């Protein structure tokens, strides 16, 4: 049976209004916003959706969710299990925290190796917290897997992977043999929304927690200790622009004034 592993993570809600987004510069961390809960990384969730579609096409497959994060990240794993994945693995350990993409990839790759045999690893193209998009490629390199990024469609047939990927000016179709790693982009479409019944069933699915020693890694290889990139500063840039609101008795009048203003400013 084909075995797919989907990497997910929990991030601060990207829909957080900019006015409420605040950073603790001393701690170099984003401050949690009361009432706005963290969410599962939307691209990673599309990775789970892609795996589920592949399973539907094949008739059967095993789908494992892998998540590196604190205990609270369990919610992201539960969401994926509710969508239809079979079991979850959580990598929770202080040693894993605040790693750069390379340190994080080392931990994830070690976990994936522990989950062998597998056929396909699915990741989101980039996570909406750091917006980096590096970790998946490094996981692939650590495991010696072919890596295809920014997929809008993924098909598995007879040990090969067929991917349609997004380019800046169109699409490209790529083929590779399994095992492989693929990253998913939003062009894949909409992820399925679990029904209450599935959410309740997910509570019974197995989630195992692994620490750095469970992976046979040394703490110096992961997290902050294992990172080459150091985060020296995290801050909110100031937007200086002062907007001049153009008004009128009617929308017509305001619109006309705007056009004249732009003409005067030599912008049209």
């Amino acid at each position, binding site marked *: 049976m084909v075995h797919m592993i989907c990497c997910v993570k929990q991030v601060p809600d990207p829909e957080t209004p900019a006015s409420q987004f605040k950073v603790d510069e001393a701690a170099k961390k984003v401050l949690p916003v009361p009432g706005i809960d963290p969410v599962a990384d939307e691209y990673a969730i599309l990775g789970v959706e892609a795996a589920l579609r592949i399973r539907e096409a094949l008739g059967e497959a095993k789908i494992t969710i892998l998540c590196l994060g604190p205990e609270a990240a369990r919610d992201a794993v539960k969401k994926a299990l509710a969508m239809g994945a079979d079991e979850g693995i959580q990598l929770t350990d202080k040693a894993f925290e605040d790693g750069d993409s390379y340190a994080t990839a080392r931990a994830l790759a070690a976990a994936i190796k522990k989950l062998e045999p597998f056929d396909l690893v699915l990741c989101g193209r980039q996570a909406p917290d750091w917006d980096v998009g590096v970790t998946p490629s490094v996981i692939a390199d650590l495991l010696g897997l072919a890596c295809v990024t920014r997929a809008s469609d993924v098909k598995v047939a007879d040990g090969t992977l067929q991917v349609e990927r997004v380019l800046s000016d169109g699409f490209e179709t790529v083929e590779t043999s399994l095992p492989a790693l693929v990253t998913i982009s939003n062009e894949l479409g909409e992820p399925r929304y679990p029904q209450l019944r599935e959410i309740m069933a997910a509570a019974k699915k197995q989630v195992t927690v692994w620490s750095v020693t469970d992976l046979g890694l040394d703490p110096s290889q992961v997290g902050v200790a294992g990172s080459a990139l150091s985060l020296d500063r995290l*801050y909110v840039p100031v937007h200086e622009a002062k907007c001049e609101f153009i008004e009128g008795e009617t929308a017509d009048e*305001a619109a006309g004034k705007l056009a004249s203003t732009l003409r005067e400013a030599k912008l049209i």
Partner: protein
Amino acid sequence: MANESGVLVVAEVAEGALAAITAEVLGAARRLADELGQPVQAALLGQGVEPHAQKLIAAGADKVYVVDDPTLAEYQSDAFVPAAEKVCREANPAIVLLGQTDIGRDLAPRLAFRLETAVAMDCLDLAVSDGRLVMTRACYGGNANAQHTCKTMPQMATVRVKSQEPLAPDTSRQGEVSKVAADIDPSAVRTKITGRRKEEAGGIRLEDAEVIVGGGRGMGSVEAFQTLEELADLMKGAVGATRAACDMGWYPIPKQIGLTGKVVSPTLYIAVAISGASQHMAGLSGAKNIVAVNKDPEASIFRYCRYGIVGDWKTVIPPFLNKVRQLKAE
């Protein structure tokens, strides 16, 4: 490796010319190298690309390493990564820079892995401090900036499109061109490109447009974008869309402006029914004047604007279009 010296740019050629981003990155490389007292190198990978080496020298490179090979005719990471690695090991630079492009996004992480270092992606700013490269990039959808330094060599970064100034091309500049054999085993290329479909979305390229009209979630339909096209045509501009509008299928994906779409730098950007979420604004870091029409007076977009109208675009844009037409006829 030790005694690293130089700022190496992985160049890109597009449609028989240097990609604009390459000239931009070379401009940044030149400034960094001058501060470090080190040379600027360029890696030119492809097939039939050797004639472009001189252009790289005119754009600021002191030495160009050319890897010209049939396996590099089209971008595939399994071919480009070892070729770029080979050049880097030969050139031994202190800094390696790439553009944040389709190629850069894919190549940089793996090249950094091969060189046993790390890369900071999509940097907005690069500077030298105490001999080290300080890399500034946006994160959290553009809500925050992060500043990084790298403990390992070479220090690597990909550079956001339109964030750096290119040098004025100087064809009298002298430089060295060195040919490097590819040594790529074709069987080591594990992926096969089976097709390519260019989305000829037509009109002026967003990346080149001086005037852009953008439509967002509030547009409501595919047809609504026709009004924006009419307006853009009148101003000899282009139309773009937010990810939300593209996800709804109202406008083609190559017209998406934002963090995972195009980065544009028009003189005038008219944002219609766009909330101004940071992920979209990340694509507008180069826009010089932003004007917005939005129903919500609290919309984030107004924090970035020079001018704005609070109102329903359906009641504002048509008369705006008519007035613009009238002004242009005068």
